[in-house]
């Protein structure tokens, strides 16, 4: 099966200068892709094989031989897949053959160091604890609460997602 990204209506994507941010609307998870991971993810159109992706990556990066490029693509696909950013599950052949991911990573890392390349990174972004929804910033524990130190905060209102904040 050729790797393919999730449908556009399931994801929100923002391009930053050196990374790509993705929000999964179904799983409510946010991810940050570095340039290498984003390069591969952008080209997972269901029509491009891993060998073709490797060739594209090799053409884009200097000092990368085709074997290392293919390892790098598999690593990126594995990470993208585990973050549920691809349709279906993509398992690198080496992993399917029983080689531990750590060993695969070490092999690709060595190739990357030799070519001064950046490994694909797919990082989950955790929501900061922010009181942004609340006008007074106090999270309620009951239906009503006394928000000490604020002018007019006495009632807890449902804000969404089951979260109540004092307004």
């Amino acid at each position, binding site marked *: 099966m050729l790797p393919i990204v999730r449908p556009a209506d399931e994801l*929100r*994507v*923002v391009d*930053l200068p050196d*990374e790509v*941010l*993705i*929000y999964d*609307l179904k799983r409510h998870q*946010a991810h*940050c892709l570095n340039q290498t991971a984003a390069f591969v993810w952008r080209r997972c159109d269901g029509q491009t094989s891993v060998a073709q992706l490797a060739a594209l990556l090799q053409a884009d990066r200097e000092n990368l031989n085709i074997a290392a490029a293919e390892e790098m693509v598999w690593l990126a696909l594995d990470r993208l897949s585990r973050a549920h950013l691809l349709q279906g599950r993509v398992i690198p052949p080496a992993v399917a053959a029983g080689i531990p991911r750590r060993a695969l990573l070490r092999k690709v890392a060595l190739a990357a160091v030799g070519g001064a390349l950046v490994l694909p990174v797919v990082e989950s*972004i*955790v*929501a*900061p*604890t*922010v*009181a*942004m*929804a609340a*006008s*007074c*910033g*106090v*999270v*309620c*524990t009951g239906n009503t*609460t*006394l*928000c*000490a*130190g*604020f*002018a*007019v*905060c*006495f009632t807890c209102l449902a*804000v*969404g997602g089951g979260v109540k904040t*004092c307004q």
Partner: protein
Amino acid sequence: MASTLRRAEGRDAVRSGELVAAVLAGAWRSAPPSLCLSAEELAQIGPRLQQTGEAALGWWRVRDSELRTSAAAVELRQAYRYATIWAAVHEHQVQQAISALQAAGVEPLLAKGWAIARWYPEPGLRPYEDIDLCVRPEQQAAAQAALRVPPGASGHPVDLHTQFLDLRERPFDQLYRHSEQAASGDVCVRVLGLEDHLRLLCLHFWRHGAWRPLWLSDIGALLEALPQGFDWDYCLRGSASDARRVVCALGLAHELLGAQIELALFSRQATLLPRWLVPAVLRKWGAPAEGVLPPLIWTLIRQPGSLPHALRHRWPDPINATVWLAGPFNELPRFPYQLVDSLRRSAAVVPRSAKVLLQEWQQSNRNR
């Protein structure tokens, strides 16, 4: 000893508040001024910035400085990333909500949130949660029906109003006449006019006791985006006390965050900030966030030793006391306002205290 400790706590809070103000000064600009802050100082206020929603702006300030690799800056960057992608999600929600209303023949007015985020260099710099929409009172039912989502579907976090509390003397039709249109993707969004918006931001800032620095940053961002023909007369029209509060908020944005404003537009008297105001705001910005306090009567019964501490934390700050009692922002001492506000609050919790006492009594009877 205790009062010395209290004064020291107050000084620390003001100092932290000053650091927050330093980080936010001009942070709404594409090229904010350089920031003179140590890594330790940034680490000191980092959690506070995270908590009150200014972390993305914090990253915006430090992203080109030597601080960018510090541990505190890395945390700020994560918050910036999250806020950036979340802004894209929210904008889509705004489009969906407005489209649903427009399809039902309702044209809402949008305020705050997305409408404010537009004034920042990137929408993610100004995080928001709910979508504040105002509709004509006679269209409220239709609007609610249009926004209703089937069970299980993800809805829009819409806060539907028929008037904005801080603009209650301005009816919907008046706000609509002064409104303007903005584009969000393919959707045409009607947002509050700049005059009404600036007034709303200022009065909202005070009504909530100025606790969130981001709100003053909003005022700074809007102030610096005002067009030549901005109608100050309309913006300040209404009660003299509201006008004074609006001008005080503008003066504060100038004083604390370096917002550029032509103060000559106003009389010297109008722009003078009362001496108690700036320290009160800074103390609030720098003080650790308060959790929900247990009822005082509960503390009295269960932890009488911590009663002085509990009382101190309930003592109203001068801003809240003044705003709640609709007092003027002048040089007179705030103590009378604080005292009256404290009594008012105490009276408000009497029924609750009685309930707690009853529960305690029932509990002790059961245990006997």
